[in-house]
């Protein structure tokens, strides 16, 4: 019964690696203002400079310090990632658990909506919507969350359906407890580990989506983002700037996603204990 998520992650090699990477990225994002030698938005006439002692990764096309931009990019990435992670897990839990507890027509409606969203290719919708509304960071978080809670809701519902048959839930009902009380005191606490796995996968997806949308140029252009940096770098592909502009950005993004994937994979046995012992191929 008691699933120790911490133990699950710590005992897996990739899990540990992922955790270290993620913690590193979080540290970078939090400490960006201290670590960054320059203001990433400060433009100068010294454009497209190669790395030097003053500018470790050189300067971009409008004379901004790429190293500083890279550090600040982690902020955007993780802010969107965790924002969406929290929000979509929350939505998934609310809808999944309520569907399981309330049942009836409500459950049917919610679950058909979930099915519909899972069938429709999300990326296309996001691109279309994002292209129209040119989202700020906050709108982007909301948009991504609204489109990504459905998978989680499905898992939560399935789990809640089994949890609500437990004796202590029946007992709580026999004290006159309402759905909310039961969800909050008896179902959600037992969903804990699953919530975390769902959360981590949501974060990963959101980080990836944010980078992709920025790369396509349909996010807020005034905010530094790894996706946007890669897009800018690519337009100067005829120069050798990709070595210090494109590659470090790509590596940072990849590391973040790989880190999250490792953690998620290590924690997955929580959802599906049969996976225990399966190593990453």
């Amino acid at each position, binding site marked *: *019964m*008691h699933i120790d998520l911490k133990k699950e992650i710590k005992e897996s090699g990739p899990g540990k690696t992922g955790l270290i990477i993620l913690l590193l990225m979080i540290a970078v994002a939090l400490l960006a203002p201290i670590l960054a030698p320059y203001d990433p938005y400060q433009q100068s006439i010294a454009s497209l400079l190669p790395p030097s002692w003053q500018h470790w990764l050189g300067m971009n096309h409008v004379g901004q310090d790429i190293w500083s931009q890279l550090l600040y990019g982690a902020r955007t990435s993780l802010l969107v990632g965790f924002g969406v992670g929290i929000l979509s897990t929350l939505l998934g839990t609310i809808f999944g658990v309520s569907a399981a507890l309330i049942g009836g027509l409500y459950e049917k409606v919610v679950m058909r909506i979930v099915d519909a969203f899972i069938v429709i290719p999300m990326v296309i919708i996001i691109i279309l919507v994002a292209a129209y509304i040119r989202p700020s960071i906050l709108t982007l978080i909301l948009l991504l969350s609204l489109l990504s809670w459905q998978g989680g809701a499905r898992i939560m519902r399935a789990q809640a359906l089994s949890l609500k048959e*437990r*004796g*202590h839930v*029946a*007992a*709580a*009902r*026999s*004290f*006159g*407890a309402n759905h909310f*009380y039961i969800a909050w*005191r*008896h179902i959600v*606490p*037992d969903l804990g580990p699953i919530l975390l796995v769902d959360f981590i996968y949501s974060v990963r997806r959101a980080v990836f989506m944010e980078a992709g949308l920025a790369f396509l140029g349909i996010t807020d252009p005034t905010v530094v983002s790894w996706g946007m940096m890669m897009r800018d770098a690519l337009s100067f592909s005829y120069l050798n700037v990709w070595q210090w502009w494109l590659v470090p950005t790509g590596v940072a993004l990849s590391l973040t996603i790989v880190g999250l994937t490792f953690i998620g994979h290590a924690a997955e046995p929580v959802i599906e204990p049969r996976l225990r012992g399966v190593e990453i191929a």
Partner: protein
Amino acid sequence: MLEIKDLRVSYGQDIILNRIDLEVEAGGTLAIVGESGTGKTTLGLSIMRLVEGTVQGTIRFDGKDLLELPDREMQRIRWSEIAMVFQNANNVLNPVYTVLNQIMEPMIEHGLKSREEARDRAMELLRYFGLPRERLSAYPHQLSGGEQQRVLLAMALANNPKLLILDEPLSSLDAVARGEVVDLLKEIDRHCTKLVATHDLDTADKLSDRMAVLYGGKIIEVGPTQDVLSRPMHPYTRALVRAYPNMTTVKDLQGIKGRMTRPVAGCSFHPRCTQAIDICRTKTPRLVWTQGRHIACHRGGIITLLSTRNITKSFGLLKAVDSVNLYIEAGETLALVGQTGSGKTTLAKTIMGLHRPTEGAVYFEDVKVDNRGKDFYNRVQMVFQNPGESLSHRLSVLEAVMEPLDVQEVGTKEERESKAIQVLGEVEIPQTKDFLNKYPHHLSGGEMQRVAIARALVLDPVLLIADEPTAFLDASVQAKILKLLLNLQEQRGLSMLYITHDIAAARKVSDRIAVMLNGKIIEESATSEIVTAPKQAYTRSLLRAASALHSIESSEWP
């Protein structure tokens, strides 16, 4: 023959008898039953006009109002037409008269017989009551208690009274002598009306055809003796029956909570009654006629707390519960007995609203229960079958017991905590901080079950549905828990639906047993009847299979 109306007797401020209405037909025997101090003797003495206090009302005997008669006339009637056998034989007999003279006295006194006739009559009576011939000239202090009692009976019958008042006539006799005297008293039944004041239900059962239950100076129930004893309608009468050791009932003895206090406003029994409501505290109930007897209770006697009417619960094609009609009265235990899979738990869960019935409905205090809100669960609670499962592994002992209070939003957190701790004390769970913070997996099966019971009791429910509450426990712990539940019934008037497969355990705790088989109730009756005279073959097989420990019965001492 004897008709008492609105009789009130008081000593100064103390009201001993309050508005007594009674009737005894000629040749009938009425038992006045009640605890000591309830006014039985005073009632007898009032009829004899030997009470020193103030007496009001009317006592009509043979068309005459005894209370209005001049003293001379009363003196004539006393001991000739109305005689009384006093409770305390030792004090009543004159120590300087021999037994024979003692009995001759009333006859000679009333001038009914000559000395010779009186002597013959006295000897005849004493022989009738089985006093040895050589004891006739003994003095009262030389007699045993039982012999004194016989002398008193002989004395009372000396003048062939029309009305005989017997005050605890059998109390100083041993069981065998009792049997003899009962037979003798029955013999004289035919021509003599009798009033038997007693606290002993067996005496009432053996001697009377009708009985009146007296409590706190008031009549609370009157009816044919057999009916009243087999199906008491007033909570006090039932409590009396339950407290009385006898060979018929099989349930463990139960006392009555509290002590008799008087005077009290409202119903005299309300401080000890487990179904008292506001009106019982303020208004005195009148004796009214219902269902073949008189009863004085604002609630119309013992109420039916919960009933199921044609409850059916199907799972697909399977009818787990099939048109079940059951009722549970306030303060009683109904045992639901049946093998695993007979639908007992499904029925319990349907009553609790954890399953929706396919057909039929549950009625609480005769009101149909549709949506169970907090007020329903406040009064009906369930102890689930498996405490390990029904206690959340995330809640400590204290938190688990507080949970119902949290849900019902009772009082402040401190109040809830102290209430939970108090109830844990009632179920004999150590109230140390260390224990209160334990989690279910730290507890033994017995401890878990107690915590589960405490949790169900913390809301002070009036009905407890206990689903195999002792299934996981060894016999000694089971005995403790069953005792605990019975105790709660005595103290709080808790009604119980006790679900079990163990008819031996059910026999000790239940008033009635319902036997369930394949979702149907096949037999339902008083526990003693089910155990001794089951009607269904299945019930007989359950009884045969029940634990009996035959070795105890058949073993012989060397």
